[in-house]
């Protein structure tokens, strides 16, 4: 097993809000190795985008890192100077943002932005940057790239926008590619095409790809390993097949049971996990999943469970994980 390319160590992030501090991420540990695709999965509001924003060092203005580090190339990138952080963004760690319609500037042609995004290559003339942008669009399957470089983001279809967003992230051949919900904004056919494109990428990208999604199907198609998040915590991690076939955390089990792809017969309503996420401002003591857990025990309400080794490369944050 190769060494970690990037590792998140004990990372906690909270947002200041009127109601108090929203603890969006709590003591998260994860790592991505060279050549690996990892998935981060969890329902809406569990802190996925917060984690993604930490990877590119662009947390919201009201966010505070309360503990932990992100190690990349031997340094904690959260502690760098602003100018050093800028050196890493886009060049070493690039992001495919959720909702590409909003992620591009509406009044600049896409080509201009793709040229700007190669900011780091000071020595390279504009014409070459443009050529590179064209080549990248070609690569992600945009027809007539030279023409499309002159268009604005609102003139493209959702699938095309997502392709351009992927092309943008690939421009600087970053070691780490973070994709936040890369297919959520798309319909089913488009989604299949983008998944296909990402699979192609994974075979010739030698860095790490981090796919963030609430869609288990995407994880199954793309990822080597999975981290399951709940209420700001990593509650289970393991190889994709282990997570699928032998989930140890009740939340993971519930997620899999709710996945439409797992239904054997047509149903009137899609199954959902009963209950809601706990209030991230005032978290309950004990396990944060206790209120929704089908196998909840007395101790779950009082003591927070720790990560328990349940098999090779497989761990879960549950008192009952070994049951």
């Amino acid at each position, binding site marked *: 097993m190769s060494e970690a390319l990037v590792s998140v160590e004990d990372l906690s992030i909270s947002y200041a809000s009127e109601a108090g501090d929203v603890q969006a991420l709590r003591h998260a540990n994860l790592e991505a190795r060279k050549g690996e695709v990892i998935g981060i999965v969890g329902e809406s509001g569990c802190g996925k985008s917060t984690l993604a924003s930490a990877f590119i060092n662009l947390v919201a203005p009201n966010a505070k890192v309360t503990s932990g580090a992100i190690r990349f190339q031997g340094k904690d990138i959260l502690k760098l100077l602003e100018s050093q952080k800028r050196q890493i963004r886009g060049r070493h760690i*690039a992001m495919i943002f959720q909702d590409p319609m909003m992620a591009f*500037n509406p009044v600049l042609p896409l080509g201009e932005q793709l040229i700007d995004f190669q*900011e780091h290559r000071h020595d390279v003339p504009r014409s070459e940057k443009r050529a590179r942008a064209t080549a990248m669009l070609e690569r992600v399957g945009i027809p007539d790239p030279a023409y499309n470089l002159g268009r604005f983001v609102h003139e493209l279809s959702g699938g095309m926008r997502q392709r351009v967003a992927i092309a943008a992230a690939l421009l*600087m051949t970053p070691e780490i590619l973070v994709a936040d919900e890369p297919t959520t904004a798309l319909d089913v056919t488009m989604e299949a095409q983008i998944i296909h494109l990402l699979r192609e990428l994974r075979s010739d990208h030698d860095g790490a790809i981090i796919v963030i999604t609430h869609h288990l199907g995407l994880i199954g198609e793309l990822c080597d390993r999975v981290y399951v998040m709940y209420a700001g915590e990593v509650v289970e991690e393991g190889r994709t097949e282990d997570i699928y076939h032998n989930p140890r955390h009740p939340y993971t089990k519930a997620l899999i049971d709710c996945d439409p792809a797992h239904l054997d017969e047509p149903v009137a309503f899609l199954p959902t996990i009963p209950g809601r996420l706990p209030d991230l401002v005032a978290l309950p003591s004990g396990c944060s999943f206790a209120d929704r857990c089908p196998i909840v025990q007395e101790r779950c309400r009082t003591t927070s469970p720790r990560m328990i080794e349940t098999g090779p490369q497989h761990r879960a944050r549950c008192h009952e994980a070994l049951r």
Partner: protein
Amino acid sequence: MLNYAIKRIALALLIIIVVMLAMYAMVFLLPGDPATLALGPRATPALKQELQIRMGLDQPVYVQIWNFFRNAVTGDLGYDVWSKRPVAEMILEVFPKTLFLGVVAIGGALVFGVALGCLAVVWRNTWIDRLLAILSVSMISIPSFVIAIYLLLIFAVWLGWLPAIGAGEAGDPWSQLRAVILPAFAIGITWVGYIARLVRAAMLEVMSANHIRTARAFGLPEHKVITRYALRLAIIPTISILAVGFGSILSSAVFVETVFSRPGIGTLITAAVQKRNFPVVMGTVLFMTAFYLLVVTSADLLMARLDPRVRDVFRG
């Protein structure tokens, strides 16, 4: 884009026609005929008839309207009833002074407004921001005639720093500049507050947009993010407001020119209305309407150039 431009220009022409028809209607719906009104009750019938012929009032209304439009297109706006000078010539003589006043007022408002707006953004949510907010709102809400009169009293009468009346000596830019400061200030100050609020709001909104984060996520330096990604968007609403503002500044000019006894379109039209100098009133209103529409339409077209989304709304 061409399509959009043609539509905008057609709309502008339509507005001019409607305004002129409304002007005509107003003149003819007023009791008494214009010639009698102009000459007063003691005029002889012969005199009245002569004036009616001179003003073209002996012809049917639709012929008058048609003639007026036909002549206007060739630049002939008729003749002053009293001095018999061409109206177009009279307008062109004073228009540069009004235009200068308007440009100085709006230019100054733009410079100060954008500066204050940016300051408020840089120091957002601090006491500086709040102070600027109070300042801007006061500038918006104090009527400009109050400001004009106080300015006159303080700077012209008490301190004697700036001239109280006139537009400066012909051919002496320095005296012209000194003469324009007070009137420009009086009309422009409202817009300083307005533009400051607008720029602040637009900038704040743009800076929190996702695409700004994208630009940063690709390592763009902050100055490039602001100038190339944020300002370009934030300036768009400001431009359309400026065009409308320019129209309202031109109409404020009517009274500010009177207060400061400054030759210009405002004083021309006031005098013409008082003397029932019908062709001058008509010609001046037509000219100013056309000019205002020219400004607004160019601003719209400029906006469409800057914002491709607007362009598409009017396409096809």
